[in-house]
């Protein structure tokens, strides 16, 4: 449905998007993930024909964004980060305008407007001025505007930013309802958002594509390792922190032990396991056998945030490595 190849977008001095390629199948919900300033909005703007690409191509339903922008625009519903609302209009009037702008005929417009107002639960505020609406309602009006012409592709730029938890849940529900009929791309920098509503995720960082995979795969792949918080009582500075750390590191399956500041006569550590290893019982046995008092042993789930950081960090490292290789190539092989 959406095909992006070698997409690059340069602004005057910066490269916002750098050689990104991906494909999105019809009917998928895809999360577009990245920290602020990663190039999410820019990519979306290229897909909606708001900005032209500097290099590479992007096409929607087989139509190129540069060659056939009208056909692309007809097939896309777009909700920018700030919903494009006219504060002086009422909700019904605004949807009427937006619908006609997107080419809905006068005969159908009233029916379509009613349908989307029902879908987005806007019936109550139908005749209210948009300037009087709360943020959550505005977001929903923005969404209604994006789906009014029943587009094949929905592009939503941070649809839940700035909403309260209840409103976030409402928007998520709404997206789930829409999922069957439309291909949806939503951008966000909140990872739980992706876990909740997306099937696939595309991660970009600093304008580069970092990973693209299904959400389940990604979490499985990176959640193979376990992280455990360990607290040990140490009245009067005994046992010594270094000693404990050493012992914990010797437990089989442990990859890393991080010592944290002692508090109220307790030492605490965060222990990470190797891929696919269960270490909690071994840890407990090891501590008890040494004669120390174990006061807490708690699994810490790797959040998507950490996964994301790992991924982007790994990417940076990999980049460095290849650079090094390049540097070393001209030299004679040492090994």
């Amino acid at each position: 449905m959406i095909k992006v190849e070698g997409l690059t977008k340069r602004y005057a001095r910066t490269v916002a998007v750098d050689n990104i390629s991906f494909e999105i199948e019809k009917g998928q919900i895809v999360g577009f993930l990245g920290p602020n300033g990663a190039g999410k909005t820019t990519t979306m703007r290229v897909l909606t024909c708001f900005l032209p690409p500097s290099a590479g191509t992007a096409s929607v339903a087989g139509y190129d964004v540069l060659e056939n922008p009208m056909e692309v625009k007809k097939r896309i519903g777009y909700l920018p980060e700030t919903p494009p609302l006219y504060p002086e209009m009422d909700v019904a009037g605004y949807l009427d305008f937006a619908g006609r702008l997107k080419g809905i005929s006068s005969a159908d417009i009233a029916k379509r407007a009613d349908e989307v107002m029902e879908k987005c639960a806007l019936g109550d505020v139908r005749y209210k001025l948009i300037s009087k609406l709360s943020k959550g309602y505005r977001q929903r009006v923005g969404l209604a505007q994006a789906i009014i012409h029943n587009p094949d592709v929905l592009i939503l730029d941070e649809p839940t930013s700035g909403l309260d938890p209840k409103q976030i849940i409402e928007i998520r529900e709404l997206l789930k309802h829409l999922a069957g009929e439309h291909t949806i791309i939503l951008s966000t920098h909140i990872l739980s958002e992706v876990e909740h509503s997306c099937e696939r995720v595309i991660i970009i960082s600093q304008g580069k594509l970092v990973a693209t995979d299904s959400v389940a795969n990604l979490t499985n792949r990176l959640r193979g390792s376990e992280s455990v918080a360990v607290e040990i009582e140490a009245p009067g500075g005994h046992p010594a922190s270094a000693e404990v750390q050493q012992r914990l590191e010797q437990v089989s399956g442990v990859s890393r032990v991080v010592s944290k500041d002692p508090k109220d006569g307790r030492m605490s550590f965060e222990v990470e396991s190797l891929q696919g290893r269960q270490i909690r019982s071994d840890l407990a046995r090891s501590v008890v056998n040494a004669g120390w008092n174990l006061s807490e042993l708690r699994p810490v789930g790797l959040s998507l945030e950490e996964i994301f950081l790992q991924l982007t960090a790994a990417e940076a490292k990999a980049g460095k490595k290849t650079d090094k290789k390049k540097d070393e190539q001209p030299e004679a092989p040492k090994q």
Partner: protein
Amino acid sequence: MKNILLICRKEVNSYFVSPIAYLLMAFFGLIFGVGFYTATRQLMQYSFQMQMQGGGPSMNVNEQIIRPLLGFASTIALFLVPMITMRLFAEEKKTGTIELLLTSPVRDLDIVVGKWAGAMVLYLCVLGMSVLDVALLFAWGKPDWKPVLVAYLGLILQGGVLLAVGAFISTTTKNQIIAGGVTFFVCLLLWLLSWFTEFNSGAFSSVVNYLSIVTHFDNFAKGVLDSKDVVFYLSFIFFGLFLTSRSMESLRWRS
């Protein structure tokens, strides 16, 4: 065409839900009314004197009231236009609604022409306030209607030019105040061009004089419908709208 009408209607609505349309109409109606009162009073005094003394040149409502008044109106228009056009694009750029327009299946030129037409409708409404006063002259006097019509045509065309210039300037900034200020300055400059050339001669000054919109209005005010002036205004409007749509297109490349 459908899209032009749609955008035009939207612009007109947004003018008339805010106080700006009513303010401009009231402001213009008041100033024009004061001008009308003064001119009429002068004419009456003058003709009264003529009656007492006898003789003198014959009185003419067209020459003595309508022509200077509509000339006056064309000057006031210079001040009104920035207030009409400053929000056209600057506001949409600021609030981000421009993204809705530019990502909808509508041609850039349709957006530009629609917006300009919306501004034109408001301008016509403002100008319409003067018809109230002029109608009084027709009710109680016998002015010649043809030169009046020509003068109004001139006012409309001149307004179209200034609105196109204002629309162009509005695309260049996000800030309405800047858009309004620059438009006002440019309108003033176009007005002053004719003064500048008054004491100069030569090719340069005749080119400048030709560019002055006020010079071209003079003929309309006299009741002379010259195709040269009409062509000047129309081509200026086309040029302005063309520049505006180019400038809007460049938003995509620059932003």
